[in-house]
């Protein structure tokens, strides 16, 4: 099996107020293409930080991150942006839709950025899949939280990413809506064969992934298969 993500000896420290704060300490793991992984741990343990490093949103203080065989730590910010556009999809706790774009336009952006063809029809198909065919021309402010998260799901899959990162995708949703969104996420993922990495507190969500990585105080404390 091919390795899509490999994290080697990664540490992250912050300098502040005369002391060094170590948020991640020598973390090692690798993820196979097509698998689903959840990262769990107590609040403040460094999950979001780890996710940011894996997705190339930030640079590690030490160690290397390889995504799709590309050493992220050796790329410039703009080069990493292109890597994200080609291979990575995101889902955020607070949806992060562009407020001045309609639902449809939000889904179209990653494709437009790549200069692809049939952008509109492909985006409409995705929005139909998440059940928002009637809300395509609405702005995020006109949608409920659940609807916004469904738009962001459509956007995350629009550029057919090889790997999808989700940070607390259900953190801002009620249980019922959460379940719907989770189901959609796994369905879409299954269909596209994307690698899925989810940071979550929600054990029910974590239990649906094949593998669970636990971290605590910046250390990887457990890495088990479900």
């Amino acid at each position, binding site marked *: 099996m*091919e390795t899509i993500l490999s994290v080697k000896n990664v540490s992250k420290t912050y300098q502040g107020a005369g002391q060094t704060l170590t948020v991640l300490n020598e973390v090692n793991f690798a993820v196979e*293409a097509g698998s689903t992984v959840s990262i769990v741990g107590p609040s403040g343990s460094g999950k*979001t930080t780890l*996710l*940011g490093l894996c997705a190339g*949103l*930030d640079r590690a203080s030490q160690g290397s991150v390889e995504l*799709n*065989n*590309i050493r992220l730590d050796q*790329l410039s*910010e*703009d*080069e990493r*942006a*292109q*890597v*994200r*556009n*080609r291979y990575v999809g*995101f889902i*955020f706790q607070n949806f*992060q*839709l*562009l*407020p*001045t*774009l309609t639902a449809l*336009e939000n889904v179209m*952006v*990653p494709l*437009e*950025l*790549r*200069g692809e063809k049939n952008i509109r029809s492909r985006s409409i198909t995705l929005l139909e899949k998440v059940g928002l065919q009637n809300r395509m021309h609405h*702005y995020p*402010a006109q949608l409920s939280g659940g609807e916004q998260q469904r738009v962001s799901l459509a*956007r995350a899959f629009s550029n057919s990413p*090889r790997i999808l990162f989700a*940070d607390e995708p259900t953190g801002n949703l009620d249980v019922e809506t959460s379940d719907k969104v989770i189901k959609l996420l796994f369905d879409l993922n299954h269909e596209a064969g994307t690698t899925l990495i989810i940071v979550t507190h929600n054990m029910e969500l974590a239990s649906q992934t094949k593998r669970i990585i636990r971290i605590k105080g910046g250390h990887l404390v457990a890495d088990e298969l479900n």
Partner: protein
Amino acid sequence: MDFERFKYKRRLRFGWLLKMAWRDSRRNRSRLFLFISSIVLGIAALVAIFSLGDNVRTDIDSQAKTLVGADLVIESNKKVSSRIRPLLDSLGDQRSVERTFGSMIYFTKNDGTRLVQVRALEGDYPYYGSIETTPVRAARTFRNNREALVDKTLMLQYNAKVGDSIMIGDVTFAIAGVITKAPGRTGLSTTVAPPVYIPLKYLDSTGLIQKGSRIATSYYYKYNQPEVIQSVISDIEPRLEKDGLDYDTVEERKKNTGRAFEDFNQFLTLISFIALLLGCIGVASAIHIYIREKIASIAILRCLGVNSIQAFMIYLIQIVGIGLIGSILGALLGIVIQQQLPAVFKDLLPVQVTTTLSWKAISQGLISGVVISLLFALLPLVSVRNISPLYTLRLSVEHVRFRDPLKWLVYAVILFFVAGFTWWQMHSWRQAIIFTISILAAFLLLSLVALLLRWLVRRFFPTSWNYLWRQGFANLYRPNNQTLILIVTIGLGAAFIGTLYFIQDILISRVTLSGSGNQPNMVLFDIQNSQKDSVAVLAKQYNLPVMQQVPIVTMRVEEINKQTSSQVKQDTSSGYRSEAYEWEFRVTYRDTLTSSEKLTAGKLHGPIRSAEDVIYISMEDRYAKRIHVNIGDHIIFNVQGTLIPTVVGSLRQVDWQRVQTNFRVVFPTGVLEEAPQFHVLVTRVPSPEISARFQQAVVKIYPNVSVIDLNLILTVLDEVLDKIGFVIRFMAGFSIITGLIVLIASVLISKFQRMQESVLLRTLGASRKQILFITALEYFFLGALAAATGILLSMGASWALAKYSFNAPFTPHPVPVLILFASISLLTVVIGLFNSRSVLNKPPLEVLRKEV
């Protein structure tokens, strides 16, 4: 599964960027427009002034000929010598002579008397343009009869009709026509002494031409081939100079008129430019806040793979687009304003101004406006490049670096542009740099005040005060505060408005002559030696005081320290001196100082008793400095052909603002008594009726004596000042309104900053009154501090201008200063409160949904 190797491709995808810029601006267009509205007026003013300049330049070109009326004019202030006569009579293909002098005329119908400028004309002058009269033919026919053309205002003032008679000296003329427009100089002098044309052949019989009379003669020449003028001039110039004759040509007039206008135009351009700069500061602050609000969107875009240049471009395109719209609106407005300018500047411009569209002026105004506002917009805009995608995961603004080395580059370019623009207008690097540094200093000082305020409030926070006060004060330094931006914009606006006000005040107080009290208000001049005593007696008969009676001798400088005019002209190292040789001095002689004079160096040496005595003269100190003359320097004066060697014996300070005859050069007694001279008598008439009767008596007995009623000059001066004041106010209006727009925009934008908080407070149950109080307190504090700093700045600037540019005292009146301060502070509060009303009047949820 195989995978492509990653290879970075930098692509801009400009089309997509345009689309994104369009989409991104969608929900904010009205706000974007608000930002840009602050430059509209500045650009409008620039376009209007540039257009005016362009039009006036072509108008001068096309009208110079009719201003001069001939191809060549030779002018003399004294009787021309027989040496040069043959030359004067041989020039040109057609010739005219005009002799002009001030004299009283007398309307026989109603005993009216009035000082006029008599123009005794022979020949067909003007060759270009015409003396416009009603009836039209009068301009031709009067030359052959004993007839006169009389200025329109005079006719109205004395209720005269064509066909009535006037007396000039001993000769009676029939009025042939009314002058509506005559070639030659216009303005103040023609208001004091309106023109009256008579045929030259009657001049001698008027009996007004006597020794010492101040008569100027103009010889007008028309050439069938005007191209030869240049070579004619270089041919005769040395001979003219030797005889003290001046010449004027169409080209020369174009140059001189152009030069005078360029100074005026420079001043107007700089005022417009300041309005634009003020607007630009508004733009920069607005965009800064706009970008702050866009951080989240930019971070999302970065997450999705937009690179830093693309992110920057999405916003640059918006700013350029909206800036272009603003500029075009500004240019359109400028064109509208341009149509009004000739009416506004009517009496201050040398020619009749057309209002043709000038594409050059429009594009100059547009480009200046777009470039400078873009540069200012770049200041906040470059930060877009640094917004990290990490922000999507962590909502803390601290991640955003608003510091950027590139900013320093932008600052440098802005300074360079401002200096460059100023240089383009003033053609002097020194002035350009002073201008740029003053603006920079004002900007820095205001920023310093704002930072200091922020620091002080934080450091000495009144923790024990009640909640509302604390909240109001805390708003000054909490994150997203508006302190710096509001203080700088309001402060600069206040500084500028203040400076314009003070300058106007200085200018007006400088020329305000008090017509009240016991100040003299009538001057009689051209009194002959023989008439001196009897005129004084006549005044006493009318119970008028003889307040001053002084002899006046006209003379020119021949040599200064053995250097003649031509030597000085070759040796440029001697500074300003050459102007001293061109000046016609009106000199008096006495051995004492008047009440308006004070010795600053040397002493008065007293009367000359023998021919061997050294003649020590006294010179006005400022003039001496200007022509680089000092105590002990030797000056030879030429008094109507007689050379008189003198030594500068003292320097005097003269208060020119008093209504009194004042002199640059004073001779001791015992030298000039026998020289050709006339006398001036200064008196005060208590009423217009007595003034009229006294003038009639003087004109009847002494037709050569001219009378100036200073009340008349005062009224004219008042009118001129009104016009200048109006122009200043008109131009200042652009800056003031721009300042207001910037203020409104800044406060409006800060509304978006404070919106969430206010809503939160509302949600937590704060009352309407409480929120109003907090808002009012914050804005009052900002407005008051900015206004105070700005006004202080303007006082400093005005003081410097008064001292170094206008040589006038600067005494600001406290009441207008207080009014200015109060209005700016109050305005800030009112606008601030007005803006928060949407928070107060609507349910919190609705506000949050709509505005965020």
